[in-house]
């Protein structure tokens, strides 16, 4: 039986739920515990971000361990921005040694977005090469250099894909490359423009990629109309439909409307062929996740047998 609960849930055919947990900008483990306790039971696995938007935070592996101690299953995000192939492979071994069963490989935001824009970036590997590396370590027991290891890291390998980036046709090609490199599940950029996502999923299904990896659609509750407009205009690689901005602008109770929108989106996403779950990114608003999951009819989460 798979070590990863997320993997077991996807194998069972249940609609999976994952949620993002951002580590703090300090070494406050209590903060991570608190977030974890708030979310316990409302998702199958919890993504711990890796210095997201290039802002220094508690390491994703350390925060993941804190969550694991609280009984939550982490998905460790690993970006290629800050570590070369030596450090990345070492951390893959570390993650597996600590019993964390999921790794999500991504390129990482450029350091110019963060709080150390003067940093030297690494990008020794890109995300696709990282996926391939983890798969080779796990399935062939070999490092990039070809040397063998005695105990292989048994991890469920994830990737991200952004249906809202360009060139649009390449997004499906890129996903295919990631799957061929070894990705078993995919979390998409948050869907705030449903038509584009539908077209993306049609292309994914035409190529049969939905059968080779589990696609989890990203969703994001947006706390204010201003934030929605900001993301629409200024965030590279995001698309926000006008009607989402307008609904938030007109709403009496903006937070209530934000939740309504996400719950409706989840209902629509569940109808799209090929989608096997959702990934909730409630950045700095994690406390809203339980309500979203309940109102979307996805609570309680299925229980899977553990060996």
């Amino acid at each position, binding site marked *: 039986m798979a070590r990863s609960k997320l993997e077991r849930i996807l194998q069972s055919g249940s609609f999976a739920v994952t949620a993002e947990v951002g580590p703090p900008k300090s070494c406050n483990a209590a903060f991570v515990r608190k977030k974890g306790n708030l979310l316990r039971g409302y998702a199958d696995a919890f993504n711990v971000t890796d210095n997201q938007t290039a802002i220094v935070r508690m390491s994703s592996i350390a925060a993941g361990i804190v969550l694991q101690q609280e009984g939550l299953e982490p998905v460790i995000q690993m970006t*290629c*921005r800050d570590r070369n*192939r030596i450090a990345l492979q070492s951390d893959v071994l570390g993650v597996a040694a600590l019993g964390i069963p999921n790794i999500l490989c991504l*390129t*990482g*935001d*450029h350091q*110019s*977005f963060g709080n150390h824009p003067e940093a030297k*970036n690494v*990008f*020794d*590997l*890109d*995300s*696709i*090469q990282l996926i*391939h*590396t983890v798969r080779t370590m796990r399935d062939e027991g070999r490092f*990039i250099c070809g040397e063998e290891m005695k105990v292989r890291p048994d991890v469920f390998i994830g990737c*991200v*894909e*952004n249906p*809202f*980036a*360009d*060139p649009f046709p*390449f997004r499906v*090609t*890129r996903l*295919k*490359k990631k799957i*061929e*490199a070894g990705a078993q599940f995919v979390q998409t*950029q948050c869907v705030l423009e449903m038509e584009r996502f539908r077209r993306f999923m049609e292309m994914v299904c035409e190529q049969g990629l939905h059968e080779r990896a589990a696609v989890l659609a990203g969703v994001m509750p947006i706390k204010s109309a201003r934030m929605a407009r900001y993301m629409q205009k200024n965030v*590279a*690689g995001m698309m926000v439909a006008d009607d989402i901005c307008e609904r938030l602008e007109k709403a009496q109770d903006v937070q209530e409307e934000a939740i309504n929108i996400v719950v409706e989106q989840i209902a629509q996403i569940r109808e799209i062929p090929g989608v096997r779950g959702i990934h909730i990114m409630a950045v700095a608003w994690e406390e809203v996740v339980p309500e979203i999951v309940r109102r979307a009819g996805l609570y309680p989460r299925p229980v899977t047998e553990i060996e």
Partner: protein
Amino acid sequence: MIVGELKPVEEIVAKVKGYSRILVVGCGGCVTVCQTGGAREAETMAHLLGMALRDLHVSLDWTCVARQCEFELLEELKPRLASFDAILSLACGVGVQAVAEFFPSSPVIPGLNTTFMGMPVRHGRFEERCQACGDCILDLTAGICPVARCSKSLLNGPCGGSQNGKCEISAEVECAWHLIYERLERLGRLDNLERLVLPKNWAKSRDGGPRRMVREGLVPDGEE
């Protein structure tokens, strides 16, 4: 070509403080083409510094050599050096180092910031094109370099931050991978992007330490 831009005059003034006889040396190579470190700029710089350092009784003169990055071409400076206590070089970092190596006891100050290897794309506008990675892959990428021109030096296509042809770091920066995609499409070679490109050998790049190249047939007998 190597592109360099002049340091701000105040910075140069601060760097040359303490010297009383300074020779500004321009370079007739790349930086003449950039119009940042040639004869004209050397003359102007000598003039500007002369004014800025007038009260300190600093004397300045200028000259220009064909290329500062070749020892033979630095020969002509030899007779003049006795009358100066510092050289301000307006060459790229290679030229500055050649001068330092050729004149072991003269202080050399860089007047330019060497910025990149590139070319003029319009009059007066230069862009980076190559990072000398030591293992050229331009055949796979339709003649557009992702190592130098993608902000993350990615090798397997555009990241999730590419939108409307622009790079995620700024609306002013073109996404190199978008350009590569469009050109491969025109060439009917989009299949290049379906292939998994394995990790690059960065040991051939600067990461392997300072590099050198031996051109067979040019090395005098008995060496190497």
